[in-house]
């Protein structure tokens, strides 16, 4: 029977741990323009949608040009009727790559997140601060100060609530220890709240006035008021010890726990009353169990009759508390993880891994608890023996519980696994271009995945220019041409209709790297329109070795397929006239004869132009060119005498 009970308690432990309170974060769900988008015309604004409502007064959205200058107009503003969105207006932007950096504070729980992404206007956002489709880490590392603060708040409130419950139901209406212990517990909680406020202010980077006027500040103030009421209750107990004072402390501590539950993630999930209620019960039952253990340690010093009876009563109450913790924990865990079927997130997210660490600590706590429940408590309550063993074990339990509160402090700063899943994983590699026809009758948004040379998936969204409604069409055809490469012809691709205004197709018309002209021919019942677009193929990652020597140009050695390599350098690599060298080598170290080669240079402003190549040797080409200060990209496409196509690129910052 005991083994069964131990097994049940062990199972309960697992769900309890999974159900520890976890806060949420306003992570990026999507943006317009999208990360990595290549637009034909500048957007009038940037709109970002988050997984939780952001606090506009504490949120920042900057749009930076290639020189790092802010180009946005005004502060980030909320979007009417869309509480999850923030928008920032833009002026008429010239062609170029723009980086959107954002930092926001969740209105729900005050947690800070930030990230950046890039989009291009007329220029593919390659080589920008954030590569196309790249979303930088958006959740800052947990703040040690905030973790300590939360530890203090949890520990203080649990100790206060546990003290009141044990005083009323275990120790006959009196405190198990001095009232000064209550004061210390309150001080721990209050100090925790202060540290949380300081940490929040440091993280957000605003004045205390601004912080306290925000929704996050309001929640901190509410919790402060709750702790103030608890302080009054502690003073009452100090003046007039007894049951009324303990009831008052219990109610005040429970109220403070309710305010804390409301300020967390549970307060934003529907039905709010249910989620907050479950979270509140969870906090209170943890207070009875873990806080009660500490009071037991203080109150049971001998094996007198009252102590023996008290130990038995606490064992009974702790069992009930453990049951409540288990049930509420299951409910909260299912919510935070994102459903029973999402258990893998325990292993795939920081939140889940931290939970598992906590499982280990809690397993130790449960083992100690089981030893007390089935060995020490019966001995103490029935025979008055093993009191020292009980105290030692309870002391170890309390120490372990203190550690668990610390882990909880870290856990609550991590985005719950369910929210991480709701936020987009790094956007799929793709090229997105938009445009319209001369007659301004149609708008086209063309998505090319993966956007590299070779097979691609094409999706064209076609809408009326004015209304944005899907445009009726009989057929949609893409026609491709690469300027300067007439030998490639003009391959075309017929798309199939998949939904109103959505046409898709797959093919390999992008046969070489470069900026392709793509004509979208939309044929309707009464006429046709042509929307010209420019699709810059994405460069695949390549292995580059960079060799720098004093007084020498920087040498780039790029590994190519088939054991070939390209060595390239710019001489002298300073603003002014330069010579760009490209030399192809075989694996043996001999020069690789090249049949033909073309090269382009992309200016710091993002404009691409041809580099006229002069052949020096069978595999050695040079280009004389004038380079201004800034970050340049050089692309070369070549074909060996055996007909093998090669392409490579490298970036270099030209500076004096």
């Amino acid at each position: 029977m005991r083994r069964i009970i131990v097994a049940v308690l062990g199972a309960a432990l697992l769900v309890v741990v999974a159900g520890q309170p976890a806060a949420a974060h306003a992570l990026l769900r999507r943006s317009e323009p999208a990360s990595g988008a290549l637009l034909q015309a500048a957007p009038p604004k940037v709109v970002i949608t988050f997984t939780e409502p952001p606090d506009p007064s504490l949120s920042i959205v900057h749009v930076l040009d290639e020189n790092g200058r802010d180009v946005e107009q005004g502060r980030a503003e909320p979007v009417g009727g869309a509480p999850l969105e923030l928008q920032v207006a833009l002026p008429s932007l010239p062609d170029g790559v723009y980086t959107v950096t954002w930092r926001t504070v969740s209105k729900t729980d005050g947690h800070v997140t930030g990230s950046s992404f890039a989009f291009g206007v007329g220029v593919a956002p390659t080589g920008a601060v954030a590569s196309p489709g790249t979303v930088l880490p958006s959740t800052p590392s947990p703040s040690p100060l905030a973790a300590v603060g939360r530890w203090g708040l949890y520990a203080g409130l649990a100790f206060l609530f546990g003290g009141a419950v044990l005083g009323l139901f275990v120790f006959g209406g009196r405190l198990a220890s001095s009232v000064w212990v209550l004061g210390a517990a309150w001080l721990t909680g209050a100090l925790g709240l202060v540290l949380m406020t300081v940490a929040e202010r440091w993280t957000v980077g605003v004045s205390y006035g601004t912080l306290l006027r925000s929704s996050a500040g309001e929640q901190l103030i509410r919790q402060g008021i709750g702790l103030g009421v608890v302080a009054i209750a502690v003073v009452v107990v100090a003046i007039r010890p007894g049951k009324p004072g303990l009831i008052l402390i219990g109610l005040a501590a429970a109220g403070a726990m309710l305010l804390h539950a409301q300020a967390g993630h549970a307060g934003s999930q529907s039905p709010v009353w249910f989620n907050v209620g479950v979270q509140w019960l969870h906090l209170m039952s943890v207070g009875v169990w873990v806080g009660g253990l500490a009071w037991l340690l203080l109150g049971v010093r001998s094996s007198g009759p009252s102590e023996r009876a008290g130990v038995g009563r606490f064992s009974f109450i702790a069992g009930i508390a453990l049951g409540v913790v288990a049930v509420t924990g299951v409910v909260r865990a299912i919510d935070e993880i994102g459903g029973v079927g999402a258990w893998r997130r325990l292993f795939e997210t920081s939140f889940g891994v931290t939970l598992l660490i906590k499982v280990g600590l809690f397993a130790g706590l449960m083992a100690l608890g089981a030893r007390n429940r089935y060995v020490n408590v019966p001995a103490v309550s029935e025979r008055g023996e093993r009191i020292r063993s009980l105290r030692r074990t309870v002391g170890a339990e309390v120490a372990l519980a203190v550690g668990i509160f610390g882990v909880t402090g870290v856990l609550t700063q991590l985005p719950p696994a369910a929210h991480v899943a709701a936020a987009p994983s790094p956007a799929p590699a793709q090229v997105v271009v938009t445009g319209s026809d001369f007659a301004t009758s149609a708008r086209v948004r063309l998505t090319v995945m993966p956007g590299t040379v070779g097979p691609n998936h094409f999706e064209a969204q076609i809408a009326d220019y004015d209304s944005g409604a899907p445009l009726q069409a009989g057929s949609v055809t893409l026609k491709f041409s690469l300027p300067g490469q007439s030998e490639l012809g003009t391959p075309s691709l017929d798309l199939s209709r998949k939904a109103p205004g959505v046409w898709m197709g797959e093919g390999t018309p992008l046969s070489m790297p470069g900026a392709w002209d793509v004509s979208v021919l939309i044929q309707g019942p009464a006429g046709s329109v042509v929307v010209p677009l420019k699709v810059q193929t994405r460069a695949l990652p390549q292995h580059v070795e960079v060799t720098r020597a004093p007084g020498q140009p920087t040498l780039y050695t790029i590994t190519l397929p088939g054991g070939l390599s390209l060595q390239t350098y710019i001489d002298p690599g300073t603003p002014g006239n330069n010579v760009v060298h490209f030399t192809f080598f075989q694996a043996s170290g001999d020069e690789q004869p090249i049949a033909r080669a073309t090269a382009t240079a992309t200016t710091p402003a993002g404009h691409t132009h041809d580099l006229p190549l002069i052949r020096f040797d069978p595999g050695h080409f040079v280009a004389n060119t004038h380079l201004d200060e800034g970050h340049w990209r050089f692309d070369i496409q070549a074909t060996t005498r055996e007909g093998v196509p090669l392409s490579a690129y490298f970036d270099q910052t030209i500076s004096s």
Partner: protein
Amino acid sequence: MKGRIAACVALTAGLAAAFVLVLSAPALAHEERTVGAYHFVVGWGDEPAYAGLKNSVQLILSTKAGKPVTNLGDSLKVEVIFGQQQMEVPFEPAFDPEEGFGTLGDYRAWLIPTAPGTYTFHLFGAIGKQKVDERFTSGPTTFDDISDPAEVEFPTKVPTGTELAGRLDREIPRVNAAIASARSQAEDRADTARTLGIVGIVIGAVGLLLAVVALIGSRAAAHRSTPAPLSVSSGGESRN
């Protein structure tokens, strides 16, 4: 020796046959089809074909045996179809046997295709006693679609007439809407100004009225408050 001669003869014959085949093949992308006793070669007269430029439906008609048909008359017609629109165009011979001009059997139906895209030529009627009802549709395996001329325009891309007309069709309602909106705003402002003016006049009139009433009242009050002439008694006589 005989073998070499035979090889030379065979090579010469082969080259000659290839030469004839190359020359007899249509120079442009056209669709060929044999229907009954006749062989049809159909496509655009000028290829690549661009929107907005004069072009023609070209029909090179011959018998199955390869003899050009020169007496088609007006019994065969072509209907050019684009989307849900269609237009009938007559065939004209593009040759003159007497002058020795053109290719025998080459007939043209002239038109200016104004929209890029896929076109269908519906040939119907009769050639001699043979009825004809055939459709030829442009495409990658037949003859060229009509292309956007912007592909080959240099140095400046010039919109086609259709694009300009489309732009006008789009812009005119926008301009009208903008004018209507501006007019509505102006009328609203005028109404507001008129209302404010009326309110101002009313307030002014009321103020004036109040001023008059106040003036009259003050005068009346002044009149009432003017002290009566003192009566001075002197020796029991009054001055009045």
